[in-house]
């Protein structure tokens, strides 16, 4: 899972990050929910209620409502968007594919639920985010081994999966006991795409095909390559949740009991509610959102930040890192934050020690190389927003008067030079006298 750690993010994206997420008034975050059918509002009410109870202001609109729009007068009206409209071919109002992508690129969050027969539009949004749905519109994920046991022996499209991503920050620290019910379309991820993560994957025995037709060709998507639910963290830290199933958000799935085929245990309640609630917390930045501030560095024993260091100076570096808890900024505690003293390659790589109150610090010696260095903190952990701090600082060589003087080994030379001088005076005297 090494690829999960690789979140390539540019340094200058840090300022954009603040626009995506305003810590000033987080309680009144506005979310636009676009639905195919207003009936979804009640059939998926458990999910919506959990959002509302966490302080989100949901605005339900039909996807083809001609009055909807994401921004007005250059200001975005919403902080996040939920697309529960898998069959919509085009949105009403001013919303189209480009508008949604701009919305994400300016740092806003997005939840997409597709379904079998998902429309072109939804597929394209997903594709732009790095997720490829099965191109067969009628295809569903079928699993003849780990399907959910139900009363009617169906076509095994209702899957019970418990192959979650192992990340406390994404799915919460509480273990999800019951499998998650899923019924819908599968998608695949480009393995070279480092921004997208598979949160819920299908079992090795799953495949994606049209359950109604006979399987003539080998299915295009098989096994654990099929992702059921994926998340994307864009480089500007906007977060996207993409699910192949709309029904997994429904009250029916939330409440239904679940038993995985071949498994003796029968759970009273499916894992869907816990899974999706925790996941929505992550998507809406209630977890895993870090910020770094107050980067300071100074020479050991001094308080002011210098404009330039000299080689072999001792310096101290400190930075404060906090995590958003949903209501306030809490100190972030980890022992793997590192600082680099970097000039084309890291010359110094030090672990920062923390005081558990958010402050990280270390001290090191400037290497014996001059040049323009950077203090770099590149902190990329699975599920966390990536921290990328860099601060430029030049390092100069010794000044002409900073070199060592009066080296003992050179005393004979000094002696010789001075003896020559005295010799010169004596000689002058003698020479003049003898004349």
């Amino acid at each position, binding site marked *: 899972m090494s690829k999960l750690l690789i979140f390539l993010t540019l340094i200058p994206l840090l300022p954009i990050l603040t626009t995506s997420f305003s810590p000033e008034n987080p309680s009144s975050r506005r979310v636009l929910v676009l639905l195919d059918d207003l009936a979804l509002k009640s059939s998926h009410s458990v999910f919506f209620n959990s959002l509302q109870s966490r302080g989100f202001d949901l605005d339900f609109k039909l996807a083809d409502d001609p009055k909807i729009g994401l921004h007005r007068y250059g200001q975005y009206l919403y902080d996040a968007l939920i697309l529960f409209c898998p069959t919509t071919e085009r949105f009403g109002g001013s919303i189209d594919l480009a508008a949604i992508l701009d919305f994400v690129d300016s740092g806003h969050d997005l939840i997409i639920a597709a379904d079998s027969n998902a429309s072109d539009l939804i597929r394209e949004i997903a594709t732009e985010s790095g997720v490829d749905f099965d191109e067969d519109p009628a295809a569903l994920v079928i699993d003849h081994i780990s399907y959910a046991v139900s009363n009617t022996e169906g076509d095994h499209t209702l899957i019970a999966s418990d192959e979650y991503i192992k990340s406390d920050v994404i799915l919460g620290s509480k273990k999800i006991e019951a499998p998650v019910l899923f019924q819908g379309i599968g998608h695949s991820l480009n393995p070279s795409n480092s921004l997208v993560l598979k949160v819920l994957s299908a079992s090795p025995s799953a495949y994606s095909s049209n359950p109604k037709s006979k399987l003539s060709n080998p299915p295009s998507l098989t096994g654990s390559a099929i992702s059921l639910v994926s998340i994307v963290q864009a480089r500007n830290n906007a977060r996207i949740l993409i699910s192949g199933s709309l029904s997994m958000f429904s009250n029916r799935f939330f409440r239904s009991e679940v038993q995985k085929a071949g498994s003796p245990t029968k759970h009273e309640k499916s894992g869907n509610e816990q899974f999706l609630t925790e996941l929505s917390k992550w998507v809406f930045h209630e977890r895993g959102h870090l910020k770094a501030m107050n980067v300071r560095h100074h020479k050991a024993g001094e308080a002011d930040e210098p404009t330039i260091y000299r080689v072999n100076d001792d310096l101290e570096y400190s930075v404060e890192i906090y995590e958003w808890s949903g209501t306030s900024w809490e100190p972030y505690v980890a022992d793997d934050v590192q600082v680099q003293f970097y000039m084309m390659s890291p010359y110094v790589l030090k672990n920062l020690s923390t005081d558990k109150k958010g402050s990280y610090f270390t001290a090191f010696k400037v290497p014996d190389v001059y040049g323009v260095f950077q203090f770099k903190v590149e902190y990329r952990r699975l599920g966390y927003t990536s921290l990328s701090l860099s601060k430029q600082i030049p390092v100069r060589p010794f000044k002409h008067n900073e070199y060592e003087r009066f080296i003992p*080994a*050179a005393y004979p030379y000094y002696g010789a030079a001075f003896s020559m001088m005295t010799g*010169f005076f004596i*000689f002058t005297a003698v020479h003049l006298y003898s004349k």
Partner: protein
Amino acid sequence: MVKSTSKEAHALFHSLRSAYAATPTNLKIIDLYVVFSVFTALIQVVYMAIVGSFPFNSFLSGVLSCIGTAVLAVCLRIQVNKENKEFKDLPPERAFADFVLCNLVLHLVIMNFLG
């Protein structure tokens, strides 16, 4: 052959000594001064060979101050030598003044370079 060579060498040394004995005293003083500085330079070179050339600027200035002094003294010797016809119209006072100036410059530079 060997005997004749050594004999010749002996004669050579003898005549050298006698010729040198005729040198005026002030020239002899200069010679002494030159020998002194060359000797100091040699000591430093030997010292450098033993200890290593780390404070290279100090070594350089030490040795060059000795060589410089010697060279300047030789120049002075050439100029004040009465037998040297080339410098007949150059008064020894002027020669000495030049010598002092040159030395001052030399030692100024040495001081600058020593540390």
